[in-house]
């Protein structure tokens, strides 16, 4: 292989790592993808000069395939709605897995004097890549609404287990079969891998989907890394394994963010948890402090609605610190005080004054209620009744007729409370179930503390 190609691959590997590193911090993330993109272009162009590519004809063929695949993916990616992004990631990931599997297929069909290790890795890559392919496509289909049902039947796990076992046995036959495995075995091996991948994805649904997609993403990475070894291509090896490792960690983090161990997502109650919650009209959607921090840090305007819970938690000092940090980042922050927030007239005023919040960012209901629709994030801290839309809408509610802060009208609402506790009036609050509301559970002081440190890290 000549130096130019090797140097380009080296550059690409460096750029990938650098790009990923940038992408992991919100303020640089966008530059990261551009750098990685540059790496990709360099590697692709250099490959035209790769010694394995024989003849002009092949180049044309490559260019056609590349153009076709690239064009279709590019244009679909450009058009798709922001909300449909996850399934597109699944789709493209599946393509990558498929490509890795196909490379393995080409190499295994050629049976060109592979070393034992190469042969083993080729098979593993084939298995993983194929699974990632079919699994991702199923995930795509489900998210896109093409496939609606989440197929579940008794003994599903057993069937899956057997399929996997058979696939692995076939794989071993190929890997250690020297060069005399039959094409039929190879074919069945790929077919079963395909099936197993799909079967893995079929029963999963709802909120677990992103975790599974991330898992398939990690698998594709591994497959690519292994095929890189097969092709003696260090750029592929590095990029693949970096993604494999990063993806695995990411999958764990995502599962953790949902408070479920990853095994739970994959095996136990395949997507049941989230399936049921959605039967209520709207559900309480949890959010992590770090996420909430980013939402506020990148907002233009934030309104804070404190309530009795802030008083109970004595969180006023922390909240004020949070506000100062947001202000430093150029966010406009206002406090909205409801006339009966807390348990005594002026309860919030006393606490905010204690924390040193200046009067000029404290607004009462009449002054601020019109501002909610233009507010990016409303942070409700231990308040409940005073932001309960039932007061407006439900004539039977005990708080009907009480003026409320229209937090529900802002673009996003984050509610800090400890759990499912009701407010003073003891009624359910529909704001908590709204589409634009996220629940941030925990003691208000602790949560505010977390928010402060998370914002610092951005």
């Amino acid at each position, binding site marked *: 292989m000549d130096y130019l190609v090797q140097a380009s691959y080296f550059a690409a590997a460096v750029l990938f790592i650098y790009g990923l590193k940038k992408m992991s911090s919100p303020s640089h993330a966008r530059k990261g993808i551009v750098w990685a993109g540059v790496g990709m272009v360099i590697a692709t162009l250099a490959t035209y000069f790769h010694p394995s590519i024989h003849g002009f004809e092949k180049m044309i063929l490559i260019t056609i395939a590349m153009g076709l695949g690239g064009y279709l993916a590019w244009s679909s990616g450009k058009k798709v709605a922001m909300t449909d992004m996850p399934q597109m990631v699944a789709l493209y990931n599946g393509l990558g897995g498929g490509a890795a599997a196909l490379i393995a297929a080409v190499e295994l069909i050629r049976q060109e004097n592979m070393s034992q290790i190469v042969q083993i890795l080729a098979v593993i890559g084939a298995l993983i890549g194929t699974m990632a392919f079919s699994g991702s496509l199923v995930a795509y289909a489900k998210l896109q609404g093409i496939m609606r049902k989440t197929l579940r039947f008794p003994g599903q796990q057993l069937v899956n287990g057997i399929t996997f076992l058979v696939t692995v046995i076939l794989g071993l036959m190929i890997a250690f079969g020297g060069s005399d495995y039959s094409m039929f075995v190879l074919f069945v091996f790929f077919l079963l891998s395909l099936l197993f991948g799909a079967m893995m994805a079929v029963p999963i649904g709802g909120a677990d989907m992103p975790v599974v997609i991330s898992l398939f993403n990690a698998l594709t990475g591994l497959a690519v890394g292994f095929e890189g070894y097969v092709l003696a291509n260090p750029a592929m090896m590095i990029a693949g394994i970096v993604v494999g490792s990063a993806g695995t960690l990411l999958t764990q983090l995502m599962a953790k963010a949902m408070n479920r161990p990853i095994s739970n997502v994959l095996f136990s109650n395949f997507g049941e948890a989230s399936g049921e919650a959605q039967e209520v009209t709207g559900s309480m959607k949890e959010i992590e402090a770090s996420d909430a921090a980013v939402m506020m840090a990148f907002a233009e305007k934030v309104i804070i609605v404190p309530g*009795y819970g802030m*008083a*109970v938690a*004595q969180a006023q000092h922390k909240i004020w610190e949070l506000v100062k940090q947001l202000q430093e980042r150029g966010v406009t922050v206002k406090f909205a005080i409801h*006339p*009966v927030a*807390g*348990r*005594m*007239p*002026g*309860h919030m005023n*006393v*606490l905010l*004054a*204690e924390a040193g919040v200046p009067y000029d960012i404290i607004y009462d209901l009449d002054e601020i209620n019109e501002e909610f629709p233009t507010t990016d994030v409303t942070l409700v801290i231990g308040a409940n*009744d005073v932001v309960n839309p039932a*007061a407006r809408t439900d004539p039977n509610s*005990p*708080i*009907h*007729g*009480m*003026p409320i802060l229209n937090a529900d009208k802002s673009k996003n609402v984050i509610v800090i409370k400890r759990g499912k506790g009701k407010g*003073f*009036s003891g009624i359910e609050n529909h704001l908590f179930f709204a589409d634009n509301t996220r629940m941030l559970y925990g003691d208000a002081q602790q949560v505010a503390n977390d928010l402060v440190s998370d914002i610092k890290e951005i």
Partner: protein
Amino acid sequence: MTLKVGIPRETAEGERRVAIEPTVIKKLGKLGAEVLVEKGAGLAALMPDELFAGATIVESATDLAQQADIILRVQTPTVDEVDKMRDNSVLVGTLLAHKHADVVARLNEKNITSFAMELVPRISRAQSMDVLSSQAAVAGYKAAIMGADLAPRFFPMLTTAAGTIRPSKVIVIGVGVAGLQAIATAKRLGAMVEAYDVRPETKEQIESLGAKAIELSISATGEGGYARELTDEEKQQQQQELAGYIAQADVLITTASVPGRPAPKIIPEATVDGMKKGAVIIDLAAESGGNCTLTQPGQTLEHNGVIIHAPLNVASQVPVHASEMYAKNLFNFLSPMIIDGEFKPDFDDEVISGALLTHEGEIRHQATREQLEGES
């Protein structure tokens, strides 16, 4: 003819509040009502007549009473004042019917529709009309200030070249609206605050203000957020346990009360005797007899070096803001009843019917009716 809302000057002794304030005049105007204010009605509340832009200043109380369809007052009118009112007119104020049977009788005779603000049910929706809360908040704040003023000590801790001043200990008994406000104010001033109430849910509320809750072994939660009266035994126990805490207080603020009954006597003479020299008791329950057995409502006395201050009508000592809140309460109560410039109350509304005292020659408030007609 437009609806005329009249605000007389308060005649009760020491009353500095007034049932109106400038923004309410504007808002009433928007509802189509005309506002009449008696000359000088706001003077004691430091609101000169010029401030009442948009209202007609009426020279005499009699004229006002004759012209007004609705009269807004802070305190109960005298029988004479009722006499001056037009038949079938409307009266809104803190009427305290159980103390003024004669006035109620006269209102009834004159077919006056009267609303007693203190009877407004304490439901969420009616919080903006709750004069008890708004005036208690004023009283609680003021109680802490009075405590600081009367105390021969500093409230906050102070480390100075002439030694370190230890912070005062303020104890608040009865943690309703007034008690909470007193806690908050005393804390602000740097005192160490402890508080006690029979209702157990106040513990969290006390702590939500950064103060310390005193926990005794008795509880007394009653209906509707009010406290029930304690048994004699319980009272005994309460007093004894409390005395231990109170002995350390520099300022003691008592606000305990049970609606419609005399204030519980929580601080007997023995407790006072156990207090420090120079300690101060602010007995906000003076209005209903006081929480301390030594209390002389309306007076400030000294007992064994302890000052017992039992002011009446405390809210009236912060007349500007007390009037402002009171007037807004009345407006919030009144506004749903004024439709297109006419007075059209919806007597099915629980808030309106709850506050209705007399209407069309009948006493509508059950407890009052039973009390008065049982009497007669």
